[in-house]
């Protein structure tokens, strides 16, 4: 029957893209809520160790970070380095760093300041101990060993 046959067949109607922007906006807001903007570019490789007994850091604005790990730039060798803000640093500059971090907070927040140590799991403890000693000298006693969460078995 010729009635059922049309030349070229029927074209499939295109998908309505009118609501696509809504969906993408939804995605956007979702990501904006669950993520945080990176404050500094990492110069060292950090694979944090895993731990089960982790606590969340309460206030992001009251945390200063010290990164320790192998340099990403392989020309700098494999010796673990300290990164403060956006550059490599030495153990000696930690006290100045803590002082600067204190200065940038208001007076009430200063004693609540926590130092988060983001350290690669393969780092030797020697450099970490040195950093801890410097923090003690700078009276920054609240510290947090950054770890990733591992579920209890």
């Amino acid at each position, binding site marked *: 029957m010729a009635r059922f046959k049309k030349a070229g067949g029927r074209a499939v109607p295109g998908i309505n893209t009118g609501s696509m922007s809504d969906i993408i906006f939804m995605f956007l807001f979702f*990501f904006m809520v669950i*993520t945080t903007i990176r404050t500094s570019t990492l110069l060292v490789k950090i694979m944090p160790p895993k731990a089960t*007994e982790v606590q969340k850091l309460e206030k992001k604005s009251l945390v200063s970070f010290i990164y320790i790990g192998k340099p990403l730039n392989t020309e700098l060798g494999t010796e673990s380095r300290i990164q403060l803000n956006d550059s490599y640093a030495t153990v000696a500059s930690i006290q100045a760093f803590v002082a600067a971090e204190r200065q940038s907070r208001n007076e009430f927040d200063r004693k609540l300041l926590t130092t988060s140590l983001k350290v690669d*799991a393969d780092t*030797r403890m020697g450099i970490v101990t040195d950093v801890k000693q410097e923090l003690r000298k700078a009276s*920054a006693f609240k510290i947090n060993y950054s770890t990733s969460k591992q579920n209890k078995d």
Partner: protein
Amino acid sequence: MADISFLLLTFFLLTSSINTDQGITRKLPPLAPATQKSVNIKDRNVLKVLVNKSDYLLVQGKPINIKELKEIVKTFLSNPGNRVDFPEKEIKEIQGLGRIAVSKGVISLKNDRGTSYGAYIQVQNELTAAVNELRNELSKQKFGVPFTDLKDEIAAEAITKAIPVAISEAEPENIGGK
């Protein structure tokens, strides 16, 4: 419209990272004044934990596996049978709990400069786990809920006082190199 939101979405995906700010919280001790004499703590009140540069554990002079550490620390801190070679207990008056025996036990953690950070964190994690489990047990016994679900601040503080995190880290010594 969709193009613009796609652009924004890509921008946020690239510039942000999923929040991973969590970890084990510790409080460092203040620097000891130069004039301070070494504090005498009875031998029975100290649990010596050593981690060497090959990440092996030595507890009270015996090599052990990391999996055994939690149970050792738990029995050390709770001293269930009131044994004489385990830590003493001191009866303290704590608001919210009344008179309760608080262990005088201290865990002395010592690591080498060559110990890997991963092993150190594992040990710290086991010590924290032991303390947390003891707190949970006490909290369940006294208030009927685990410590983590304890809403009442006075009660939570009382439990924290009854089972303190007694970890003492030795002043670093340079043995073993990097």
